[in-house]
Each structure stands twice: as structure tokens, then as C-alpha cells.
């Protein structure tokens, strides 16, 4: 369960940034008064163009950034006050994340299991399950630098899921991946849902959102400009393409 209430993230602008953005303001809101809730067993999607505030929101949920205002709770724990508890329950995967090239898949996954303080027996059981499911056993002792993008993606998934998190956060997880590789992620997200996990993912690709999510928010310039169930969103499209509806919503809020 993720509860985001009235969350804002404000950044101070340097002179250079002020000049680049052609503004006299000394601060800028990356996220402005955002509230939503993600429930266990369902998939929540944050949809928005580049720079809308999706990554900042997810980073705040993942305890990487502190909100300037508002509160975020993950499974009842506050992300600022009780960040260690939050981190125990989350898995975080981003599309831009790389792995340690000089380690092997087994060493990488073991490293993260150790950081999560997993008991050895539990680690083995979980690792065997994930490695078999993802087909990592064929290359588990090869250096990651020598693996293909698809193989790396599988290792990333195993690393994110090794401690069996209740809440999984995906930040544009398929960006830069081909359709076949992206499909690994799509199945992972579906599996998480069927296992009753809370799933939130950000994307700017409507087809992906359409395929997976139960609820969505459209975020633009740091604010949520649309929030409803996926079914309701489909209904307002009136037979038009969903991407077109998404673009219309964003443009009418310029």
C-alpha cells in the first residue's frame, strides 16, 4: 500500500538554471501537491511526458528524495521518519539502471540479498526460484559486462525481487528495451499483481499502460491533471486512440 498525500518537491534554481528556463523564480516545483493511493494487488500507473515529475515522485516513494511538503506512507511507514522500514518492503527498478559490469549475476544478486540481510537458506531458495523462472542459470557465473541487454534486464529483475518486496516501484522500466526484452518486464509486473503486491510504474507509453494498469494518473508539470481507473479512461476516449486522449488531456492543461 502506498499513500501519497499532498506531496510537493521544490528545488532551488541556480543562476544558470534560471537563465536556461528563462525565469526569474528562484525555486521550481518538480512535484506540486500530488495525492494518490496504490492498493495491494493492483497496478497503478503514473503517465506523463518527459520532465512531468514522474521520476521525482517515484524517488520520493523509494526514500531517495525527501518531499518538501506532504507525507508518503508505504505499508504504513513514513518514508522520511521510518525510511529503513520502507526500504525493507520495496523493490525499485528503473529503465536507466545499470548493473556492476565486473560482477557476475550470482554475485550481484547475493550482494543485494546481503544488504537486505536475508538469511542464507532463504536466499538460496528465493534465488533458485527466480533464476529458474528467469532462465539466469545458463549465465550465472559470467561477468555482467559480457551479457546481452536482455540478460542484463533479467539480472536486474532478480536483483529487485530477491527479497520478495511487498511494494514494487518501476520507473520507466521498459525505456530503451526492444519489445522482446520489454516483455520480461511486462510479465514481471503481471506476476507482481497476481501475487498481491502493490505495483506502481511510470511510463510515457500509452500502450504499455493500457496493457497493464488498473488505475492511472496523468502528471504534467508536477501536478496530477487526471486520475481515474483505466476503464474510466477508456470510456472517455469514445473510440479514439488512448494516446490521442492522453495528448489532448496534456495539451488542454498547458
Amino acid at each position, binding site marked *: 500500500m502506498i499513500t501519497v498525500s499532498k506531496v510537493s518537491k521544490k528545488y532551488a534554481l541556480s543562476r544558470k538554471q534560471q537563465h536556461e528556463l528563462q525565469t526569474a523564480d528562484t525555486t521550481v516545483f518538480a512535484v506540486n501537491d500530488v495525492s494518490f493511493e496504490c492498493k495491494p494487488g493492483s497496478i497503478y500507473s503514473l503517465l506523463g511526458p518527459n520532465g512531468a515529475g514522474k521520476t521525482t515522485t517515484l*524517488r520520493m516513494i523509494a*526514500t*531517495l528524495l525527501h518531499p518538501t511538503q506532504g507525507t508518503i506512507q508505504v505499508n504504513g511507514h513514513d518514508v522520511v521518519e521510518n525510511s529503513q522500514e520502507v526500504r525493507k518492503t520495496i523493490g*525499485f527498478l*528503473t529503465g*536507466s*539502471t545499470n548493473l*556492476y559490469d*565486473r560482477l557476475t549475476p550470482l554475485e550481484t544478486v547475493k550482494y543485494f540479498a546481503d544488504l537486505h540481510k536475508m538469511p542464507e537458506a532463504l536466499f538460496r531458495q528465493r534465488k533458485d526460484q527466480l533464476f529458474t523462472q528467469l532462465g539466469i542459470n545458463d549465465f550465472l557465473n559470467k561477468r555482467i559486462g559480457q551479457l546481452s541487454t536482455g540478460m542484463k534486464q533479467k539480472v536486474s529483475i532478480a536483483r529487485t525481487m530477491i527479497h520478495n518486496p511487498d511494494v514494487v516501484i518501476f520507473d520507466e522500466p521498459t525505456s530503451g528495451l526492444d519489445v522482446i526484452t520489454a516483455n520480461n518486464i511486462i510479465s514481471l509486473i503481471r506476476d507482481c499483481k497476481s501475487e498481491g503486491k502493490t505495483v506502481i510504474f511510470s511510463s510515457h507509453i500509452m500502450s504499455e499502460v493500457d496493457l497493464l494498469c488498473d488505475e492511472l494518473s496523468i502528471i504534467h508539470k508536477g501536478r496530477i491533471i487526471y486520475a481515474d481507473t483505466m476503464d474510466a479512461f477508456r470510456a472517455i476516449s469514445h473510440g479514439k486512440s488512448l494516446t490521442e486522449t492522453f495528448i489532448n488531456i496534456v495539451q488542454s492543461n498547458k
Partner: protein
Amino acid sequence: MNTILTIIRKELKDSLRDRKTLISAVLMPALAVPLLILGITKLQQRLNDKERNKQLKVVLYNAPAALQSLFTDPKIQLINNIPLNQAKDSVSAESYDAILDFAPGFEKSIDSLQAGTLSFYFKSTNEIVEKRINEKLELYKSAILSARFSKLNLSQGMLKPLDVHTMDVASTKEQIGVLLGGFIPYFFILFCYLGCMYPAIDMLTGEKEKGTIETLLTVPASRFSILMGKMIAIAIIGVCAAIMTMSGMFMVVRLSNGIPPEILKAISDILSVKFILMLFAMLIPLSIFFAGILSAVAIRASTFKEAQSYVTPMSFVVIIPAVIALMPGMKLTWETSWIPILNIALATKEIVSGTIKNLQYLLIVFSLIAFAGIAVLLSIRQFSNEKNILK
């Protein structure tokens, strides 16, 4: 604690598999000093030998017979019948090496116990020529002197009123301390810094650049433990680089020929357990100091290149105190004991000589630990700033 150990293990494994770290922390420090010393001495010897054995082309004008006979040498070719101006041009053009032009009446002056005048033309760009010709002139001079002494019935002692017996009471160890004591810290401080440099960039800026830091910071480990793990791993690599430097230095001393046995013995005495322990007690905080400073800088950079552009000029800041310690007359005092890098360099000199005062040594260790602590705090501050850790 377990988290810190997990991080250290992973970082060391990761770094040891990296060719760049291996080169900068193991290979370079181990080979640099031996190659430098062996290379330079060999090269110098070869050049010297070449110049020594080269046949010199010398032109003599109005030379007395006694001198001419001294120049009858297979390594000297005497050129005759050439005008002085042309000979001078040839020396400038380096086709001839030297000219000795004896003034008219030279022999007369010598016979009348006066100073004889002669002009010696050479090119100062070639030191060996000057040296070789002067050696011949010295021989000629002593021949004249002994002839004069016997003519005047004087004893040789006339010219040497003082017969000084010099007794150096400095032990071989102390002499080596002055000679080598400055160079040892210069090299190990430099390589300790260079050894820390690359891993610091790789472990901090590298994680940021690759984006792995985001995932690392979402594990239930405090940022403090993550940073400590990384800093300790950097410091271990720095200490390892310093050890490699010293091993390389002592290997070259052991293996090179022509070192008198008393010096070899003094060097083995220097390498006592006490020396090694005393050195380590300074080296460890120094390495942590470097790790802290380098981490603080590397965290702020968002790309490898940016980090490199910050830390490479910093190596000059590290070298300067080590060079100051090499200056003659630079001594360890209560004031210099506080200055990091300079204090470790001066203290090593004194430890090698065996003249360090216990209290001063403790003060240095304490000061190094304090500076290491400040550097670590600085780095923690940078690491806690969310602006620095995410790209």
C-alpha cells in the same frame, strides 16, 4: 557492521577485477621506483661511459713539451696546423672538443715561478669534456708544483698547513635517513593518493554515472554504512598501493649491485617490525584522509571525466608538502607535526634515522587521525545531500 563488511567485500572484489585499479594501485607503485632508479642510473652510466670513452679532438697552441706528452693518449686526437679562429668555430660547431692556447712566454713564467697563462676553450653543454681536460691540467699542475718544491727545497706540507681527520659520528642509519628518508615518504604518499584516486571515482562517481546508486540507496542500509564501506575499501587500496611502493623500493635496493654491505645492513635494520608498525599507524589514517577527501569530491561530480578534472590537480597539493619535506634543513618541529602530509614525510625521515621523539610521533598520529576524521565528516556531509547523490 555487517553492511559495511558486505560493501567492503563487494567493492574490493569489483576493484580487483578492474585493470585500471590494478595498474594504478599495484603495478605502477611497485614498478615505478625500481624502473625510475634503474632506468635513470643505467642511462646516466651509459651516457657517462660513452662520453668518457669518446676520442676527444683537442687543438694545442704553443703547448710546453711536458703537457704535450700528457695529451699523448689513445682517447685524445691532437689536431695540428689550424688557425685559432677556425678551431674556435669548430668547437662551437662541436666538431672539435677543446682548445688550449698557451700565452707567449708561458714557459718563461713557469720557469720564473710565476703563473703561466693559458686559455681553455670548450662548450659547457658537455660537462665531461671540461672534466677530462681539467684532469690532464691537474696532472700538469702537480708536476709543476713538485718541480718547484724540489727546486726551492720546500716540503709538500707547506701547501697543506692543516691535516684534518674528519670523523662522521652519524651512524650509517642516520646517514641513510637523510639520504633516503625524504624519498621514501615522497613516493609512498604520492602512490597512496594515486591508489585511492581511481577507486574513489569508480565507487562514487561511477555508481552515479551508471545509475546503480539509486538501487543501492533503496536497500535497508544507512547511507552512513554505505559510505563507510566504500571509504574503507578505498583506504585499503591506498594502503596497498603504499605497501607496493615500499616493496618496490626495497626490492631495487636489494637487487642492485654495488651497494656496500654496511648500507644493506642498515637498510635491513630500518625495515624492522617497529619501523613497519610505526609507519602503518601513520599510513592508515593518511589513507583514510585521502579516501575521505577524494570521496567528498567524487560524490559531487556527475561524470567520470568531471571527477578526474577535480582530483588530478589535487595530486599537486599532495606532492607539495612531500617536496617541502625533501628540502634540506626542513625539520620536524611541534608546529610541522600538525601539518598533514608534511608531518608524515618528516616523521618517516626521523623514524628511518632513529631520531624521532615519542611524544612528537604520537602527536602526528593523533593529528593524522583528526584530519582523517574531518575528511570523513566532510564526505558524509556531501553524501547526505540528495542533490549530490542523484544525477
